[in-house]
């Protein structure tokens, strides 16, 4: 059942180790830029909290804490399944790896569905100040800032998740073909880093937006 595991050496590398490490370092460098991208939003959220503590607390009580908490759990599970896929890719058990990858994609989709439901609830409760409709906290202008930052942060994270799930599905399709693990096992490792990192960002988003301000 197990197939040989490895990667195809690209022309400009001299060893497979060099190629593997380069890919890993490259992805880490990308993740640092992602962290800094979100760091700007966390900074804004914290500055708004310092400048308008009462408004932020008021706005934060309107966030759907339990949906956020459930989503946190969903993403932790997805990291677990992704780790499973990586471990199985290393020992060359392709069928098991594919199942874990599909499970990861399913959990990612579940997250997005829950998030979409949460946005819908926000809309129904008139908690979407940047649309032209009524805004339930219109008497407290500063609360808008926090709610807007909440939408931008979660939407940006959502975009990353949509990208992540799409890449994962393509990768699963590629991996379902023979000899994938012999040639491209590295892709699973590198993708795994990205997926874990999206989870990690949510692990910061959740406390900064939902927990800290209650």
């Amino acid at each position: 059942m197990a197939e040989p595991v490895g990667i195809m050496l690209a022309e400009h590398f001299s060893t497979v180790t060099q190629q593997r490490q380069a890919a890993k370092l490259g992805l880490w460098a990308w993740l640092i830029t992602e962290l800094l991208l979100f760091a700007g939003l966390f900074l804004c959220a914290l500055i708004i909290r310092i400048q308008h503590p009462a408004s932020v607390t008021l706005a934060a009580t309107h966030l759907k804490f339990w949906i956020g908490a459930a989503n946190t759990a969903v993403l932790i599970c997805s990291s677990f399944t992704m780790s499973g896929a990586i471990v199985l890719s290393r020992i060359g058990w392709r069928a098991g790896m594919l199942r874990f990858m599909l499970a990861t994609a399913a959990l990612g989709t579940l997250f997005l569905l829950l998030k979409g439901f949460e946005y819908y609830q926000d809309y129904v409760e008139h908690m979407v100040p940047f649309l032209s409709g009524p805004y339930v906290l219109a008497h407290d202008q500063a609360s808008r800032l926090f709610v807007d930052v909440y939408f931008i942060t979660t939407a940006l994270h959502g975009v990353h998740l949509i990208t992540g799930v799409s890449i994962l599905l393509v990768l699963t399709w590629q991996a379902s073909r023979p000899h994938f693990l012999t040639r491209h096992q590295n892709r699973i490792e590198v993708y795994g880093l990205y997926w874990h990192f999206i989870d990690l960002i949510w692990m910061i988003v959740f406390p900064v937006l939902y927990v800290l301000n209650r």
Partner: protein
Amino acid sequence: MSPSDAVMRDPGTPQATMGRPSDYLHAQHTLRSWFFTTDHKRIALLYLASITVFFVFGAIAAGLIRLCLVVPNGQIFTNDTYNKIFTMHGVIMVWFFLIPSIPSTFGNFLLPLMIGAKDVAFPRLNLLSWYVFMTGALFTMATLVIGGVDTGWTFYAPFSTTYSNTYVIPALLGVIVVGFSSILTGLNFVVTVHMMRCPGMTWFRMPIFIWTLYATSLIFLLGTPVITLALILLVMERAFHIGVFDPRLGGDPVLFEHLFWFYSHPAVYIMVLPGMGVITELVAAFAQKRVFGYRFVAYASIGLASITFLVWGHHMFVNGQSQLASTVFSFLSFAVAVPSAVKVYNWTATIHKGNIRLDTPMLYAMGYIGLFVLGGLTGLFLATLAVDAHLHDTYFVVAHFHYIMVGGTMLAFLGGLHYWWPKFTGRMYPEAFGRVGAFLIFVGFNVTFFPQFILGYLGMPRRYHDYPPEFQLLNILSSAGSTILAVGYFFPMIYLTWSLWFGKRAPANPWQARGLEWTTSSPPPPHNFAVTPRVDFDPYDYAIKAREVG
């Protein structure tokens, strides 16, 4: 450890195989082989061609600015047109010329050559990076030329978010996209420096240019995402009024300035550091001497890249920042002078008692050192709180950063272009024309920008085209200088293009310079070296003449 072919070859001897179709320029001829190439050398030339076109647009805008300022009451353009022109100049020159100039052209071409690699770590990503750059840059260029934007290159809120009636959002989107290109290039370079060095190429055997490129790439990685976010928020603010930068809702416009300058001050070092690296290479090659204090120069590059993240507040001394913050930022800004001075002193000491040849690249290098000192010292004036209150937003600031950006980066770019032109193209440029061009640019530059120091000190604010008549003489002087500068720029544009077809064939190492890039043929073969080099010598091994390299 047998020495490789590349190391043993006498760098001074012309290649017998010169001109054979195996070099990277002649390996393939189709358009496809250029636009879908993954060869770092071809990608470098794609960048060179595109930034030259952008530079011409930016320079035309600069010429129009100087034209308008010849008369005190600004009759030549309306206020709105003038605002659009200086915005066009700033946006193009900063985002589409200076930031990608040295890293994306020389960096792409030389990084693998200088560390003995076949290519950068991710060649396809490298090509993608050029496409991303072109997408964003052409989009914003079209916006600037067809519609126009009047915010200045800094896009300050609340003007950009609320009051400007021009095409701010499309311009911002293009700049955001170009940022991703910076990130991808920086990522590629960092990984290349870490992972792709040839056997024996230790960190302290790398040329200084590679050190500065590495430091620049770190700034790309750590700074660019923050400006991306700041500009995304700006787009959101303008499109949806999210309020984060709007004081009417409790937001803070100064927050945008903090986010903006957290990247844009380090961006100064994205533009300056690679230039410093180029100058180090030129000075060592044309003095035929080891770089004085190599390790200090290397550390100074990393030092500059680090300190530069701690000084952004000096752009907001008069914008409502707290006294304490301003004092701290002022002190930290002074600290930048230390690694900068290390570099200047080390260049001077390298030239001292060297075997100096005043070829065109060295003329540019000498010009650079003088102008960079002037630009750097006037930076200290501006870092001083009390003096800045007087000089803030005047022509003094304009003159200061042009001494750094044009007198520094632009001269380094041109110097490096002449120095490596034989390697890029396999052709020599005409030396006499080169020297005349370098002289014209130096004179033209100083006549253009020195009067602006005086204008600024006398109180002429930047970004106005209407000024009191007593400033006219200095403004005419400045405009006259800009015409000399323009003629100076035409020189290399014309004779370098000419040399592509009619220049003398270049030997592998026309300057008797050290460094791995000179051990391979000019132009290099597609994978750079016939045999992967092995390095068992220090960089700038000029002391050992008889032994040749290695």
